[in-house]
């Protein structure tokens, strides 16, 4: 459905997207993750025909986004991060007008209900809350019954209840065969919704896998915590081979380390005659995988490069 090969985009002498390739099959939900400034939004805007690419090929439902033809716009719906409508346009008016642009639009009343905007039909855009504006943006992306939808930072700024509603809508959509490309910061969202996840950092794809595969494939720190039955000296744990860090948090001791850390710590405690009560062991999840992947990237490039990346991400330009 979406086929991107060697996508490149430069602004002056800065290469923002540097050879990104990815594919999305029909009916799949693929997530694009990455730190701020990684080039995710630029990538999806190139796929969506909103920015001129400098290199590589893109094909969406067999069409090149650069042509921006009517058939392309009918087939692809995009929900943008910063999306504005005229201040004094009401929700109903916007939905009605946008419906008229498409050959086979969806019933906008139903869409407004599903996204919790039924009460706001007569409300001016300027008077909507941030979350309501976000949901209206999603509605406008889906109103044309597109075959493919690109959703950028879909649930940022939504409260948990609204977030759940949007997720449910997307899961229903998946049932109708719509292909989705999500850009997200929110790992739980990617893990829950996506069939596959692509991680982009500094304009390159650094990993592409299912969420579980990604989480499992990375050697991330295992974390365990417990309340010792008798006071112990944390230094005795620090010395163990499998242990990386030891911290105390109130009466809890938090230990991170390799896959075997839990076992090593329990054995060491037993040797001291101390039991570990209220034990918790965390699985590495997508968050950990993500941090590990991007930290790995920094490590292979050296500390100076890492500092300049951090500056770049924080918006500092020298």
């Amino acid at each position, binding site marked *: 459905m979406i086929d991107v090969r060697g996508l490149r985009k430069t602004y002056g002498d800065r290469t923002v997207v540097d050879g990104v390739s990815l594919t999305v099959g029909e009916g799949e939900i693929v997530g694009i993750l990455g730190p701020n400034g990684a080039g995710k939004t630029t990538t999806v805007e190139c796929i969506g025909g909103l920015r001129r690419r400098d290199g590589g090929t893109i094909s969406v439902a067999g069409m090149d986004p650069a042509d921006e033809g009517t058939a392309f716009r009918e087939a692809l719906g995009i929900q943008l991060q910063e999306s504005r409508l005229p201040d004094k346009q009401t929700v109903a008016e916007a939905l009605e*007008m*946008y*419906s*008229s*642009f498409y050959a086979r639009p969806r019933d906008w009343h139903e869409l407004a209900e599903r996204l919790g905007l039924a009460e706001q039909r007569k409300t001016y855009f300027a008077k909507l809350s941030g979350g309501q504006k976000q949901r209206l943006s999603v509605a406008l992306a889906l109103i044309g019954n597109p075959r493919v939808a690109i959703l950028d930072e879909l649930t940022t700024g939504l409260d948990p209840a609204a977030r759940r509603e949007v997720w449910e809508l997307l899961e229903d959509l998946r049932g109708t065969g719509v292909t989705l490309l999500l850009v997200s910061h929110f790992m739980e969202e990617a893990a829950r919704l996506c069939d596959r996840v692509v991680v982009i950092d500094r304009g390159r794809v650094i990993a592409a896998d299912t969420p579980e595969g990604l989480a499992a494939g990375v050697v991330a720190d295992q974390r365990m915590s417990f309340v010792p039955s008798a006071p112990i000296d944390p230094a005795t744990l620090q010395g163990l081979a499998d242990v990386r860090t030891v911290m105390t948090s109130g009466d809890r001791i938090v230990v991170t380390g390799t896959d075997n850390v839990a076992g090593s710590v329990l054995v060491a405690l037993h040797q001291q005659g101390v039991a570990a009560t209220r034990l918790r062991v965390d699985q590495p999840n997508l968050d950990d995988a993500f941090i590990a992947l991007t930290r790995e990237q920094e490590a292979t490039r050296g500390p100076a490069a890492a500092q300049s990346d951090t500056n770049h991400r924080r918006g500092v330009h020298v």
Partner: protein
Amino acid sequence: MSAASAMLKSEARLLARNPGVVVWTAILPVVAAIVLAAIPAVRQPMDGLGGLSFFAVYQPVLVLFAVTLLAVQAMPDVLTRYREMGVLKRLRTTPVSPAVLLFAHLALILAVSLGCMLVMVIVPALIGATWPQNIAGFLLGYLLAAWALLGIGMVIASLFRNAKVAAGFGTLLFFVLQFFAGLWLQRPLMPDWLRHISDFTPSGAAAQALTDSTGGQWPSLLHLAVLAAWGVAMSAVAIRLFNWE
């Protein structure tokens, strides 16, 4: 409902909710026309003006003033503000073409300027001033003039990314257009070469067409053709060069 009528309906509503720019733009010439017509001395036919009253000579100037102002200041304002705000970027993701958007605004401002023109012709006539002697010619000349000038407004609306810069450019263009219309140096007083140039500008051609019909003649074919050509050319350029962002 088609995209074009939905867009027109939506923009008409929004214009009604934000009438500020249009009202403040049109109010000066409209009020001036009515005030002038109310002064008896201005309504008297004068020998020096070939039997026409001062009002009759000045009416086309004011009518042109209003439509030019609406075309280069009011018309680009909405679209350039939309562009700044990111509203156009949102529209870009739909199948709607820029032509639909531009023509919706053209239609709306044309309707407003037509309304202004009717007020500036009918109200003075009701209080004792003269009608343009060739009403049909006046109307034809006016419509083509409006299309030509609004076409220029569409080009400004298509190109500029910043509403303030567009307004500044519009003001500059206003003075250029009014110069060729003869606001400072009347057309009959221009040297021949300058008058020829003015004949081919939209405002010069419009001024002459309206003046001719006020005096009872038909606007010349040359002037009508010039106006139509500007209208067509500017509309095409505006669509071709339209910037979504």
